[in-house]
């Protein structure tokens, strides 16, 4: 079973240390996402349509709203991953790139000596409850190093991520707003389509075109975010959180959470740590 060793939340977003031994569902985040393999058997990760190996020398950078999931994990032998979810706005202050979306130039990141050192410092700092300002400092340096590298030319050629989505149709914008407002209800996507003034097929097509992912995945992300927020900022029972998000039972909520976040909701709540407003 996958387990969480440490989870830190802060102004930067969140950073987690998970032991993963099972594959996850395709999902996406609104944050910039960096994944480092710390120890254990080699795994792989799918990003959009490409599969990248995950081992010590190879990390991945995933732009906001890029679809991805962990694959080929060994059920008997977990792999330890350090995972960063960086808020684009926090990073913008340190970055020299005029792009608030934290879009990476390419997904594959070579773990150079300086990057490996930062991964080690960050992972051990999280496990030892190091000084909060150091965690934030390492996170910033690590994100900067990977971001910069993703825009550097390499001999193998660049597999660039897709371009930023074009200006969105107001009906799609409306549907996003509706989903955000109604995430705590049982959302029926057909209703969202209708209330945005679109037919069901047109809604799916336009959404996919302009946001880059399907409405279902988008909704999953919203549910995941709301679940994480309530798990970490309230004492509400896990069952209530699941029911409020439209799941019929705690078991189905837990299944959803494991498939999208990697570990169980109660596990997440147990290990989360808040890093000050550095």
């Amino acid at each position, binding site marked *: 079973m996958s387990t969480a060793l440490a989870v830190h939340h802060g102004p*930067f977003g969140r950073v987690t240390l998970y032991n993963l031994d099972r594959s996850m569902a395709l999902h996406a985040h609104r944050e910039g996402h960096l994944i480092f393999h710390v120890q254990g058997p080699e795994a792989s990760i799918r990003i959009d349509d490409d599969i990248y190996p995950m081992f010590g020398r190879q990390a991945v950078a995933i732009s906001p709203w890029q679809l991805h999931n962990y694959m080929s994990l060994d059920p008997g032998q977990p792999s330890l991953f350090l995972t960063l979810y960086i808020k684009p706005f926090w990073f*913008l*202050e*340190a*970055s*020299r*790139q*005029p*792009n608030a979306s934290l879009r990476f130039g390419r997904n594959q990141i*070579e773990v*150079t*000596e*300086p990057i490996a050192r930062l991964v080690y410092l960050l992972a051990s700092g999280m496990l030892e409850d190091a*000084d909060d*300002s*150091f965690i*934030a*400092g*390492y*996170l*910033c*340096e690590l994100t*900067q*190093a990977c971001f*910069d*590298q993703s*825009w*550097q*030319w*390499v*001999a193998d050629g660049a597999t660039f991520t897709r371009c930023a989505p074009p200006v969105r149709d107001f009906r799609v914008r409306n549907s996003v707003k509706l989903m955000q407002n109604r995430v705590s209800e049982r959302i029926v996507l057909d209703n969202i389509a209708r209330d945005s003034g679109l037919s069901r097929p047109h809604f799916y097509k336009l959404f996919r075109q302009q946001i880059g992912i399907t409405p279902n995945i988008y909704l999953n992300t919203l549910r995941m975010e709301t679940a994480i927020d309530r798990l970490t900022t309230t004492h509400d029972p896990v069952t209530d959180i699941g029911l409020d998000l439209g799941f019929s039972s705690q078991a189905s909520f837990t299944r959803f959470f494991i498939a999208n976040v990697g570990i169980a909701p109660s596990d997440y709540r147990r290990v989360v740590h808040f890093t000050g407003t*550095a």
Partner: protein
Amino acid sequence: MSLISYVTKIHFAENLLEDAIEVELELLGLRRPLIISDNGAGRRGIVDRLLETIPRSVSALLYEIPAGRATEEACLEAATLFADWEADGVIGFGGASAINLAKAVTLCIGHSGPPHKYAGLGGRSASTRQTVPPVIAVPTIAGSCFETVSVAILSMRDGRVMSLVNPLIMPRVVICDPTLTLDLPARQTAGAGMDALTHCIETYIATAYNPPADGIARDGLRRVIAHIERAVADGSDLAARREMMAAALNGALAHQKGLGGVHAMSHALGGLAGKSLEHGAVNAVLLPLVLEFNAPAVAARYDEIKQEFGLPPRADLCEAIIRLRERIALPACLGDMGIEAGDLERAAVSAEADYSNRTNPRHAAASDYLSMLQAAL
């Protein structure tokens, strides 16, 4: 929030030092500035000129950096001096060593522990205080002196080179007076000029997106190419001195876009224990090699640089830089500057970790740097 930030106050004129120092000391309310200089005995004249400029109501203390190197020891020594003497600000007077040290000293004031505690990007600056004593930067060479940069580079005791990155250490005022460079010997003029050239080229091809910095870098490049040989041949040519100082300032202003592989290696070599290297001359040796390495990653921008050199598109840019280096009589290899084969491996590792490596257009690992350093030896 700003990604492209141009806010430093800069005075630029000939024979401006006297007026500007007096006004700025008063505006900043400084009564006891510490002057940090790396000009050495050979350039005592300009140091005396600065000391004579200090108004009667102000008392200044002079600290000459030992061997002209910005080291951790020098930083701690100057910080102790600052505290004991109850100074209220720092004037960095000289080249990059003096100005970097001035910035590093202000960060050490009021903070316990070694300077590397405050090194690093962004987040870690949260552990520093909100204000530091002000720095007035006065370059006395026309090479990049980090006068408009919120980075300070120090050689640490353990042999590493540390970049202190913190927005607090940006100098409050820069005073550029080209007459301060009239006494600079030809060799140093050539080295400083090639440093300015390197800054302009590296920032121009750096990966970050910063159009104002691109414009500034290209303008600086144009000025160096047109005036470097005149300034080296006749040090008293004030017009050439002015243009070179302008080019160096442009190089420093463009720095916020990021540097590249040449500086990653020259910072690393600068950290070698016991070696006092001419930063500009080292850059001049490395520049053609890095340009060649970067060629696959830089497409149209080399053509634009060639235009500034007055070269046709088919011409070899590296060749043109080597010819220029020969005409101003700078050494062609690192071996001529006292660097030995045994130094290279450590320098290559350190170059990979240098912050300048992150914005080099082509991803470079320690092994790439080692090959380039070996070729430069």
